[in-house]
């Protein structure tokens, strides 16, 4: 019971610290705003994102089409709003996968040590040698480029950071008294790992989740931009930029706005992550 009260007090403490951190506040506002846009896309979008309108092709931003139209006369603002769904979905699912894998392997390596640790950490070193984009592209070449494949592949190639972090946490936590206590009560290894040690390592994992979503969104947009990610006509910010590139000389709005959307989104997650890190780490407060 005491521990529980302590836990909640600790949580309130870092929540209040976070609310005083301008970076974290700005980041949370951006992320929450984006989620709202993604969830309520059908109500917010002024037009159908797929509706082709040959009378209004490549129109500059105007009162009718706030962010202009593309080569097929589709409304850019509506496509941007629907694109938010893709980006968030990819970011969250991909990072969900990588966090699960990373946490599991990192926990095993940190808890058991010895050859399991050597094996897993060697695998991490090897995976870190592949430039991620090259590895993803090599895998994508075999698969139909679809949003689900992209999410799985990004998830499978970005778990190494989490694994290292969780391993380090486990190394420092596994010698504590509460682990010994759990072992004396006869708890199994899996129980010690997942219900005793892991909850104490949640905070740093949350930081990497926030930062990871940002970088997953960047990766997805790069892949879609290269034509091997989310395929048209599904609007994603990356493939909207491909159209921008194709009409670079005549339609600047097609290149400017989707990129800004990516920038703001990734910035939001990065700020949230960094703010979270500062709030969780009291040492950093003196900075």
């Amino acid at each position: 019971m005491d521990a529980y009260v302590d836990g909640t007090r600790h949580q309130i403490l870092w929540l209040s610290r976070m609310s005083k951190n301008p970076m974290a506040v700005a980041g949370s506002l951006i992320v929450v705003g984006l989620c709202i846009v993604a969830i309520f896309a059908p109500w917010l979008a002024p037009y159908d994102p797929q509706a082709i309108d040959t009378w209004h092709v490549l129109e500059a931003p105007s009162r009718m089409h706030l962010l202009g139209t593309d080569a097929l006369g589709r409304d850019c603002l509506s496509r941007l709003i629907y694109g938010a769904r893709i980006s968030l979905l990819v970011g969250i699912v991909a990072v969900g996968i990588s966090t699960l894998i990373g946490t599991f392997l990192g926990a095993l390596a940190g808890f058991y040590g010895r050859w399991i640790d050597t094996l897993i950490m060697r695998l991490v070193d090897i995976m870190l040698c592949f430039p991620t984009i090259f590895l993803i592209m090599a895998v994508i070449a075999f698969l139909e480029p679809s949003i689900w494949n992209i999410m799985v592949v990004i998830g499978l190639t970005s778990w190494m950071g989490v694994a290292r972090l969780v391993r380090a946490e486990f190394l420092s936590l596994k010698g504590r008294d509460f682990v010994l206590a759990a072992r004396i009560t006869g708890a199994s290894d899996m129980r010690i790992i997942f219900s005793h040690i892991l909850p104490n390592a949640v905070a740093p994992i949350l930081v990497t989740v926030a930062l990871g979503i940002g970088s997953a969104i960047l990766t997805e947009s790069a892949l879609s931009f290269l034509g091997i990610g989310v395929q048209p006509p599904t609007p994603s910010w990356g493939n909207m930029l491909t159209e921008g590139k194709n009409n670079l000389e005549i339609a600047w709005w097609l290149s400017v706005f989707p990129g800004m959307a990516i920038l703001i989104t990734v910035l939001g997650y990065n700020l949230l992550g960094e703010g979270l890190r500062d709030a969780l780490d009291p040492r950093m407060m003196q900075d």
Partner: protein
Amino acid sequence: MKIRGNCPYLDSSGPESRQRWYNHTDMAFSLYLIKKTITLVPTFLGITLISFMVMHLAPGEPMTIQADFNPKMTPEVRARLRAEYGLDRPLYIQYWKWLKGLAVLDLGRSFAPDRRPVWDKIKERLPVTILINALAMGLIIVIAIPLGVAASVRQGSLFDNITTVLVFVAYAAPGFWVALLLMLYFGVHLGWLPISGLHSLIGYREMSWGEKVLDWCRHLILPVLVSALGGLAGLSRYTRSSMLEVLRQDYITTARAKGLPERRVIYHHALRNALLPLITILGLSIPGLIGGSVIFESIFAIPGVGQLMWSSVMARDYPVLMGNLVIVSVLTLLGNLLADIGYALADPRIRTGIQKGD
């Protein structure tokens, strides 16, 4: 390897003992190098194994996918091709064969109509990619470190806040979008810089040597700038926090208390120690930098390894894909080795085998 507690170099007891110290250092350093190189072997094998698995355990093998696009492919032809490429053999035999080829840089032949050896295709494109990445790396170091130092020294000032905001924005900006914007502004709007290729297509042959170099430079400005952007933001942020960490330590207070000029404290005492972790960060940033080549080379139409990767994905040219994947990972591995060596050169504790805990 334990050495006596006080280091003769600091004793300044004449050139002779200093010479002894250097000799000792040399030996420990070569031992360190050998040890580091040996640990690369399992990592290298792992890289080849994973590359191989990616290609062979994916749903559908290379041949069937290629065959699906070819209406003339009969079962007999397919079987013959499978035998020709050795795809009917067990996987471990295929892997061993491929590994033996890799040792002599025989990566097979491209599926493309020209059927050229994969290594030839990669070899002619490698220098461009390495050149651009090396230039980008140089640019990152030259700009990011002074920027980070300046921000850390003026912690909390307007300058610090502005650079922090800029760094965050630059870090979050998708590089290919920045590339588009720069192309739009400098290439299309102002018409100052060329936006694609490595050199001009028209009149390049007639240029003098100097004009050719200038022409290359003009074409390389945007790609190098854009590939450096992300790393630049990251490194200057790391420099700042690394400096802040060091500036908090006691020996800095001591140096100030001795009455040393602030410049000397910052650049001589603090920076040298703050640079150490940055070498590791630079090493770790190599895969990202090389990965960026795919994007920038395809945007700026630069004939490098990244563009080859992209076109081979589009054409499903598996031998080229696999060769590319292995070669760039080995490049990364070598880059990490360089970073390790740099770290050892910069940190006498590692060079001489005295560990931090000693």
